[in-house]
């Protein structure tokens, strides 16, 4: 085995491992979406898919990609996704809170009131 072969093997193992971890995180996010009790806790499960799932799969694919330009494009997709997903998550939570969905909190405490009231 030459040095290039070993490098290639290492790259494949690392890339496959990251894609596997990303797929697993996405699965955990999907399970959480079904298992957790209310809207707000379910949004946390969505966060796992948005971050660990996207980072694992896209960085893994960038490592596995045959040339540098494809890897660069995948990383641009990752950066855009990491800017867009918290914004959409916040918009969703804000819309839910504004339309009167109140979270079930630990120990049945009420959610804190508006700062102005």
């Amino acid at each position, binding site marked *: 085995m030459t040095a290039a072969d070993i490098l290639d093997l290492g790259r494949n193992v690392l890339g496959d491992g990251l894609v596997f971890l990303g797929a697993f*995180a996405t699965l*955990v*996010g999907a*399970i*959480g979406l079904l*298992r*957790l*009790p*209310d809207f*707000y*806790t379910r*949004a*946390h*499960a969505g*966060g*796992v898919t*948005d*971050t*660990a799932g996207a*980072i694992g799969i896209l960085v893994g694919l960038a490592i596995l990609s045959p040339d540098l*330009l494809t890897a*660069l*494009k995948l990383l*641009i997709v990752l950066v855009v996704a*990491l*800017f867009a*997903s*918290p*914004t959409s*998550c*916040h918009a969703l*939570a*804000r819309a839910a*809170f504004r339309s009167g969905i109140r*979270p*079930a*909190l*630990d120990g049945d*405490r009420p*959610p*804190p009131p*508006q*700062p*102005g009231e």
Partner: protein
Amino acid sequence: MIQRILLGVAFYFLWIGLSGHFSPFLVATSLISVVGVVLLLTHLGLVARQFQPFSLVVPLVIYWGWLLVEIVKSNIDVARCVLGLGRPATPSMAWIETSQKSELCRTLYGNSITLTPGTFTVLAEGDRFLVHALHREGIAALQDGEMDRRCLALDEKFRGRIA
């Protein structure tokens, strides 16, 4: 002017990275399109420091490195909670004070809170965020203020260039 040149260079590298064409004709026409886009953005009034904070690029990449570690740590926490291996969920909600002065860095802080699983920003009113956390410790960690301090350092660097 420097802002426009930097923006043009960034657009040009983006164009090269996305196209992968290096023939002289295409490189020349891409130059024309980059100049056109920068002129259009100037006309729309979208060339400003708060839209393209070039002075923050290096500190921001360092911050992203720290944020990535936090994301991995909190992902493991939430995944254990979902799979029933860790502590059961203790959802809690609280108002968090933010100390950043600029809108840009406050947005960065709010997005960072949402990006780490286990905590997300529900409302952003003035200089306070209403944060929901899957575990009570999530709120305590935010009130402890490590992330707030790091965003504040970026904020001071950003505003220091104006004064």
